[in-house]
């Protein structure tokens, strides 16, 4: 603990008026290389999409090896969420929310698989396997054909069935980009 830093902290506390130019002494700059390791988020406009791709057919293999144990052989659910079906059920008394019936963006699915799946070893799949398993899940929901493929370009062409099913709170409308 160096005294100047302590003095700075006290000065900031007392003044209550925080001047950014003074507060440069904490932490260290992040290098572009290390940011890349953690900067995994993917936005619907394509920002953050990793380069790669895969086929529905390969995705089936990836799914069966990594996902089926929790989500069922065909995405029907188990310990993990149901992933398939439910279209047309959202106004019923028992809505079934799945990738096909509810998720608005394919990019969200890629982001989620990449950051959080498979449950026991998140982030352990290659980027190509991530694309492939997303392709397979889209095919199970009738959004891609069985012979389909998916990559960082074509994922932006996917229009999810429930794309327009969400109404952002009016309170934050000014914060949303113009469509």
């Amino acid at each position: 603990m160096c005294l100047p830093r302590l003095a700075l902290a006290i000065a900031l506390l007392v003044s209550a008026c925080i001047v950014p130019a003074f507060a440069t002494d904490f932490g260290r700059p992040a290098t572009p290389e290390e940011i890349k390791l953690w900067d995994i988020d993917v936005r619907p406009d394509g920002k953050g999409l990793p380069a790669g791709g895969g086929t529905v057919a390969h995705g089936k293999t990836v799914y069966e090896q990594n996902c089926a144990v929790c989500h069922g052989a065909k995405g029907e659910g188990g310990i993990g969420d149901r992933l398939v079906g439910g279209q047309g059920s959202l106004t019923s008394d028992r809505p079934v929310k799945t990738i096909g019936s509810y998720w608005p963006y394919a990019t969200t699915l890629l982001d989620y698989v990449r950051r959080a799946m498979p449950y026991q070893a998140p982030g352990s799949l290659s980027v190509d396997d991530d694309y492939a398993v997303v392709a397979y899940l889209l095919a199970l929901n009738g959004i891609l054909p069985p012979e389909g493929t998916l990559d960082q370009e074509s994922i932006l062409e996917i229009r999810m069935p429930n794309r327009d099913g969400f109404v952002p709170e009016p309170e934050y409308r000014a914060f949303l980009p113009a469509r």
Partner: protein
Amino acid sequence: MKPVQHKVPGTDTVVQTSRRSFLTAASTGVAGALAPGQAISETLADVPPRAPGAPLGARSERSQYVQLARIPEATPGKRDVNPAFAINSKAPLDKLYGTITPTDLHYERSHAGVPNLDPAKHRLLIHGMTRKSIVLSVDDLKEMPTISRVVFIECTGNGWENWKSADETLTVQNMYGLISTNEWTGVTLQFLLDLVGRDPKSTWMLAEGGDAAGVARSIPMTDEIMSESIVAFAQNGEPIRPAHGFPIRLIIPGHEGNLSIKWLRRLKFGDAPFMTRWETARYTQLQANGRARQFQLHQDVNSVITTPSGMMTIKPGFNLISGLAWSGHGRIDRVELSTDGGKTWKFARLNSPVLAKAQTRFELEWVWDGRPTKIVSRASDEKGNLQPDRDTFIRKTGTNALFHYNAQQPWAIDALGRVRNVLA
């Protein structure tokens, strides 16, 4: 068993001074009315003599006579699950006093278990639309000016048991145990933003956790959020416990608990929401028309009577009604109570302190005449929001929203004094 009829006194003062006689009257009218244990010390001579106690310890444990525990549960309707399959753990609201939740009983919602993070190796990356990108250690944060604030955190699923129907075996812990109030200490978000230099075009912040799920939420950079949020490293005066985000977590007062990202390791600034799974597939509220409300981030005004509440039994005569009220919009302004199923209302007493975006304790004395009835509370906040009755609420929202349930919670009391969950 015949219910005992008591004349209801006109004022609360009368109730308090004549408590003894009501209790006596009740015990003569109801067979075996004295609970086991109540009559153990009949006279002072029966009180055990004083004796030297146990050695002083490094930590204070609870009395052997006190049993307090959370309940790990799964989704609505799935109780008594193996803790390995639990998705949340609910605080025992019916056994707590005042407003501060004991640290080990603060409710928990975790998406991939509780990670065991070494604070020496933990890092916070702040980057995106900023003048510079920085990496902070936990020690770096502790050298910055701190603030402390007492606030509630509430899971948006709190109350979700009652959307469709009322299971009459539920306790207030089963139904409302996904809220807790603690004092959190850390560095203001504004201070950190000033460190990196905000791009004026940035409007959303992605906050991401260091748990296996990498839980991530997009947070709109409103004046309210930017001025009130904290990157916290302490909870009730000690380092945050692992289940609640050790070594650091975000605290966003008044908003969905899921935004207060635990095990925080990344803040990224951008010009649009990132649309993570937790703000699209989850934590969006499906309305009756099949469309879903998104970014419904404030926790609305809410209240519940914790004593008497579900699965308790009361006796005719004097009963102290006690409960908790809270609002993500600010301070609780008033709480009204009805002991006749919503026909007439009285103001409850609000116990100090009444803090903005923290739980507030309310109380009211009541003499139960032994006839079946329903008791219910409704709260209002300083912004003029009133907690809706169930009919009004469901008419507006439907029954599929799953999250953000804040309708009034009635408890039905039958002629035997049994208190049960009902919808209205």
